[in-house]
C-alpha cells in the first residue's frame, strides 16, 4: 500500500491485565502503542481477548491492573476522564446496537446534541453529511429495524463519526452481516482508513487487513503473539501459533 505518514502515539497501553469473574483470563500483561492515523487490525482465534482489548480501551470493561493513556488522558477511576475519552473514541459493534426507538437521523444526532452540546441545526447538517457519506441519505427518517444489516451498520458508523472521534474502534463490525452486505461496510471502513482516521479493527476480514492495515496484531490467550506489517504478517509469519492460525483460515 502507499506510504502514509503516521503521527505520534495517541494510545499507550501498558501491561494491562483483565480477568473475568468466571476466572477467564482475557488479557494478560498486554502492551501496545497506537499512532495517530494508524490502522491496526487485531486478529486471533475466538476467546483470545481481541474484543476485550477493544472494550478496555474505552472503559466498557474495567482493567484489573496496568495503564491505558489516551492522548495524554489516563483512563482511570475518574469519571470525567472516562467520559472525555469515550467522547474521542467512536465504537462500532458487531450487533450495531442502534437505538431502536429513534430514527436513523435521531440516532446520529443524539450524542452531538447531548454530549457536544451542538445546536439541533448543526447536529442535523453534520448528520446528513455523514449519512450521505455512508450512503444512507435516503433513509434518514426510517427506524433501524426497517433497514438491512449492512445499512444498520453503516448508520452505526455514521453515529460514531458524528462525535468527530480521534480514534474509531471496530469490534467485528462485519461478523453479523450476510455475506453480500459485508462489502458495503468494508468500503466505508476503507474510505475512513484512507482519509487518515486512526482505527483499531477486530476483524476476520483478512483481505481488509491486507489492503488497508499499517500494523497487524495476532492475539491468543490474552497476549500478543506476533505483530507486524500486513506484508510481513501474511507472507512471513515467525511464530508457530501464527502460522497454524493462518493455515486454518486461509
Amino acid at each position, binding site marked *: 500500500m502507499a506510504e502514509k505518514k503516521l503521527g505520534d502515539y495517541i494510545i499507550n497501553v501498558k501491561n494491562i491485565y483483565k480477568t473475568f469473574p468466571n476466572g477467564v483470563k482475557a488479557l494478560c500483561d498486554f502492551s501496545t502503542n497506537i499512532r495517530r492515523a494508524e490502522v491496526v487490525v487485531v486478529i486471533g482465534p475466538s476467546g483470545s481477548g481481541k474484543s476485550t482489548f477493544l*472494550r478496555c480501551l*474505552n*472503559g*466498557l470493561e474495567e482493567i484489573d491492573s496496568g495503564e491505558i493513556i489516551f492522548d495524554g488522558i489516563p483512563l482511570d477511576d475518574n469519571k470525567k476522564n472516562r*467520559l*472525555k475519552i*469515550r*467522547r474521542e*473514541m*467512536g*465504537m462500532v*459493534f458487531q*450487533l450495531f*446496537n*442502534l*437505538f*431502536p*426507538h429513534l430514527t436513523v437521523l435521531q440516532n446520529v444526532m*443524539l*450524542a452531538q446534541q*447531548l*454530549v457536544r452540546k451542538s445546536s439541533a441545526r448543526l447536529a442535523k447538517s453534520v448528520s446528513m453529511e455523514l449519512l450521505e457519506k455512508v450512503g444512507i441519505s435516503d433513509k434518514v427518517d426510517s*427506524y433501524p*429495524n426497517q433497514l438491512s444489516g449492512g445499512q444498520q451498520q453503516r448508520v*452505526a458508523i455514521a*453515529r*460514531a463519526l458524528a*462525535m468527530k472521534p480521534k480514534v474509531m*474502534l471496530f469490534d467485528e463490525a462485519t461478523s453479523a452481516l450476510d455475506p453480500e452486505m459485508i462489502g458495503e461496510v468494508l468500503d466505508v471502513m476503507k474510505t475512513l482508513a484512507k482519509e487518515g482516521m486512526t482505527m483499531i479493527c477486530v476483524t476476520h476480514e483478512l483481505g481488509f487487513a491486507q489492503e488497508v492495515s499499517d500494523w497487524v496484531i495476532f492475539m491468543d490467550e490474552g497476549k500478543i503473539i506476533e505483530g507486524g506489517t500486513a506484508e510481513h504478517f501474511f507472507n512471513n509469519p515467525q511464530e508457530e501459533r501464527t502460522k497454524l492460525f493462518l493455515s486454518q483460515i486461509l
Partner: protein
Amino acid sequence: MNSGGTQNARLPSSVAGNRFLSTSRMPIKDIAVYLFVMAGIAYIILRGASEQGYNWQWYRIPQFLYTLEDGAFTLGPLLEGLKITLHITWISMILTYAIGLATALLRLSDSIIGRIVARVYLEVARNTPLIVQLFFIYFVVAPVLGIDRLFAAILALSLFEGAYASEIYRSGIVSLPKGQWEASHSLGLTTFDTYRKIILPQAIRRVLPPLTSQTISLIKDSSLVSVIAVYEMTMQANAIVAETFLTFEVYFTIAGIYLFITVILSQFVALLERIFKVHQ
C-alpha cells in the same frame, strides 16, 4: 382485557393491525358464546340467592347513586364515595409510578447504601399486608408527620403499590439488551442521559402492560382504606349495607363501578400500546 392488550402487543404488526377485523370475524358465534357464559353466571347467582331466600330490591339502589329532586341533580353516597376513590387513586397512581421508578433506579445504582435502602423498603412493603401498613401509617406515622386521614391513605397505598411497580420497572430496564448501554456509553453519554434518552423510553413501552395491571390493583386496593374511615366508595357501601341490608345489590353495584373504571383504564392503555409499539 388487560391480558388481551398484552397479547396484541406481542403480535407482529400485520396481525395486530387486523385486530378489529379478527374480532368481527365470527360475530354471531362470539356473541352467542358470550351470552351463554353470562347467562350461566347470572343463573348461578340468582339460584344461590334464591336458595337463601334473598329478596332482591334493585329498585332501592338508584337513590344511593344519585337523586333528582325538583330538577336538581344530587350525587348519592356511592358516587360521592367514587369521587373520593378516584381522588385517592389518581394521586396514589402518580406517587406509585414515581416511587417505583426511584426505587428501581436505586436498586440498579452503584451506591451500596441506595441499594440497601431500596431493598429493605421493597421487602417490608411487599411482605406485610396492606391493611397492617395502613394502620401503621395512620396511627404511627401520620401523627408524627401531622398528615390527615386522606393523605395517610394515599401514602400507604403508594408505598405498597410502589414496591411492586419498582420490580416491574426493574425487569423492564434489565430486559433491554446490554448493547444499548454500551452504545450509549461509547458515545460518551452520562448515565443520567442514557437512562433519560435511551433506556427509559424503551423500558416504558415494555412495562406498560404489567404497570397497567398494577394500577388496576391499586384501584381495587383503594377499597381497603375504608378501614381507617376514609369515606371512599367501599366505605359508603359498607355504611349503606349496615343500614339497609341490601348486601348483594350494593356490593354488585360498586363491583360494577370498579369494573367500569378498570375497563376504561385498560382500553386506554391498550390504545397507548398501539401508538407506542410501532417501532419496537
